[in-house]
């Protein structure tokens, strides 16, 4: 066993570091640091996507024939870790990490040829149409309906929690095409042009003060049958495949560590009156750091299993559960570390383009919004309660 990387892997690490150092602008870095929601705004995120694409790194997890870089699991880990350390913007994961793998796995040749290059280049910006007002954790109870009319489906219904629907030109969605004996039957996976007539988008502000999610309404929206991925009625299978990716992309510890580092630096600074001198704060920083160490080791164990072709099993639910809980512990700690400044609200967005002097030092601007918005981590992508159900069922057989 060996925790260190080999010569080729270290060379790759240097390559990634060099690439990021050369291409990541100060503006992108500052904008990312000052984004208190999960995703970067598209102008920032897509600029980075184009940069990656030019290097051939636009879609790390894809097979080579569709433009993936053919990295080993260790290389992917190094890439994600170095990206987190350097503070690069979030790219449009709904495209690269969610719908991309589904199109590659189940899409038609025409769909692959049309959509995949546009995801890579950043030409398309995707959003995810899964949850509905009446279908949260019980996702397969969804009611948005697609009725066949010649070569089209006519879609009616509504989707909610749609991240960046107000920026996206495309949505992948689960819709009901028939009523089967089980509610999981009769669901289809369709690709929707967000500019189609009959689609309206309502912003939803989250408690941290950010506009990231929306509700989307479909009123007799025509979608060509050719835009269905895979077979009619099999959408649940494809959708679940995607959720595995969403939960288990598996490399979260580096980002958590950067988050904790920022809080630890604040705690050691005069800006917070050296919060770290309180033994309670110092111990809590250690507790969170140790939790990150454990998560990182679990990620590396999974990675080692993947390297030798083993199936890591239901561990993606463990990773999702712990990542979300630790993320919340980091942001909770942050709100306590900044002390008095946790009382101030900065309502303007984006925080990296304020046209006035904020009430607190810039390093603190995201702390409380991140804590507040961060409550969503244990809810989206399958709540912690759902993850525990999955662990009980898949790992423990109960």
């Amino acid at each position: 066993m060996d925790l260190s990387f080999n010569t080729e892997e270290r060379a790759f690490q240097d390559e990634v570091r060099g690439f990021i150092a050369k291409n990541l602008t100060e503006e992108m870095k500052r904008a990312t640091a000052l984004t208190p929601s999960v995703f970067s705004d598209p102008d920032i995120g897509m600029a980075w996507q184009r940069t990656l694409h030019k290097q051939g790194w636009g879609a790390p997890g894809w097979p080579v024939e569709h433009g993936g870089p053919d990295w080993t699991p260790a290389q992917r880990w190094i890439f994600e870790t170095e990206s987190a350390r350097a503070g690069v913007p979030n790219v449009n994961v709904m495209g690269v990490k969610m719908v991309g793998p589904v199109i590659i796995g189940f899409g038609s040749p025409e769909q692959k040829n049309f959509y995949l290059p546009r995801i890579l280049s950043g030409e398309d910006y995707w959003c995810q149409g899964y949850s509905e007002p009446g279908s949260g954790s019980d996702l397969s109870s969804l009611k948005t309906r697609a009725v066949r009319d010649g070569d089209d489906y006519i879609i009616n219904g509504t989707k909610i929690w749609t991240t960046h629907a107000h920026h996206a030109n495309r949505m992948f969605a689960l819709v009901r095409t028939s009523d089967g004996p089980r509610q999981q039957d009769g669901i289809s996976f369709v690709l929707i042009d967000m500019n189609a007539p009959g689609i309206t988008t309502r912003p939803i502000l989250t408690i941290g003060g950010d506009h990231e999610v929306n509700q989307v309404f479909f009123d007799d929206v025509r979608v060509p049958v050719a835009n269905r991925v895979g077979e009619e009625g099999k959408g649940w299978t494809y959708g679940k495949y995607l959720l595995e990716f969403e939960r288990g992309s598996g490399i979260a510890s580096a980002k958590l560590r950067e988050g904790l580092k920022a809080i630890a630096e604040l705690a050691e600074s005069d800006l917070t009156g050296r919060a770290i001198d309180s033994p309670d704060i110092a111990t809590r920083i250690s507790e969170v750091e140790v939790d990150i160490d454990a998560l990182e080791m679990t990620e590396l164990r999974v990675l080692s299993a993947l390297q030798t072709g083993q199936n890591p099993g239901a561990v993606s639910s463990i990773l999702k559960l712990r990542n979300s809980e630790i993320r919340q512990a980091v942001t909770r700690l942050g709100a306590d570390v900044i002390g008095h400044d946790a009382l101030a609200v900065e309502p303007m967005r984006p925080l990296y383009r304020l046209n006035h002097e904020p009430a607190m030092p810039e390093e603190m601007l995201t702390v409380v919004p991140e804590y507040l918005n961060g409550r969503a981590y244990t809810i989206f992508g399958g709540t912690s309660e759902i993850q525990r159900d999955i662990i009980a069922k898949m790992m423990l057989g109960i």
Partner: protein
Amino acid sequence: MDLNLSDEQRLLRESAERFVAGSYDADHRRKMANDPLGFSPAVWKQFAELGWLALPIAEEFGGLGGGAVEIGILTEAFGRGLVSEPYIATVVLGAALVERCGGTVQKQAILPKVADGSLKLAFAHSERAARFDLAKVATIANKTAQGWRLSGSKVAVLDGHAAGEIIVSAHIHDYQGPSGRIGLFLVPAKTPSVAVSDYERLGGGRACNIELSDVQLPQAALLGDGHDALPAIEWAVDRAMAALDAEAVGIMQVLLETTLEYTKIRKQFGRPLSANQVIRHRLADMAVQVDESRSMALRAALKVDANPVERARAASGAKAKIGRCARFIGEQSIQLHGGMGVTEELEVGAYFKRLVAFDTLFGGSAHHYGRHAQLGRNVVPA
């Protein structure tokens, strides 16, 4: 980067698990609990034959040159069976201190005997007033014309009653007075003025308190050349904690499996306990914490040879985290077994008690989160 077991490591795991499953059942454990020695000399002999006592010792002294990962593979299996043989005291602590601090003659005299099973060791360091601070040693070793004169009180000495040689730490006072250095001294069992009072240890095995009253030792009793032994003590204890971490993982895994099985067969209100979501989620949390503990134990083992600060932070972080998980899993295992869980009729209690002992040994969670924080002051996490 590779965390998969090698073929040799897999074989070691298989043979350790097979041995424990075959030799360590509830009857054996009950017999050992009532045994004045607290373990079986026949089993110790088998450990020697299997090469486990030689495992971490260097090849030049009759060992196999294994590392902390191999020790962890063994101790995890020991945890599954609540093995009570003095493995940590003799092999992980004792032999390591001799190998690191001893002179060649001492190493040649002691290590081959540990490897072949003919000599057991113990490490007498902890003192009541020091709590878990390894640097605090009130025992004094005065330099004399003949050698050394030791006085002091040691507590919680693992398996001291069984050891042929006890390694005792003491502050060295030379003719000029306190030297500021801690020395390690080899004290043979039954040395006059060494009073060993042993007791049954929580969760199996034995430990003892030792009174040293003007104990006369020859010059050669000092391990090595009298350099300050504190760095070696910290290293050895961090290593022992990594071995104990793996043992705790084995114990927790058994408790998870046992409790899971029980909730499937125990029926109340006309259905198995495991049909209730509150029970399923509790078990899911237990499974997550076993997995986290497994990760941390491995991490501590892989960092035993890192630089002292990195090693110590990994050791304390793992001990703190696993201690907390151990309490949760132990307490919840009893809770989910209901009234039967608090009786001696099931073995859940025995496994729980070993976990409580684990959390106490070398300092509990609070102590080690504190040490982790102290060592990390002004060091931004890397």
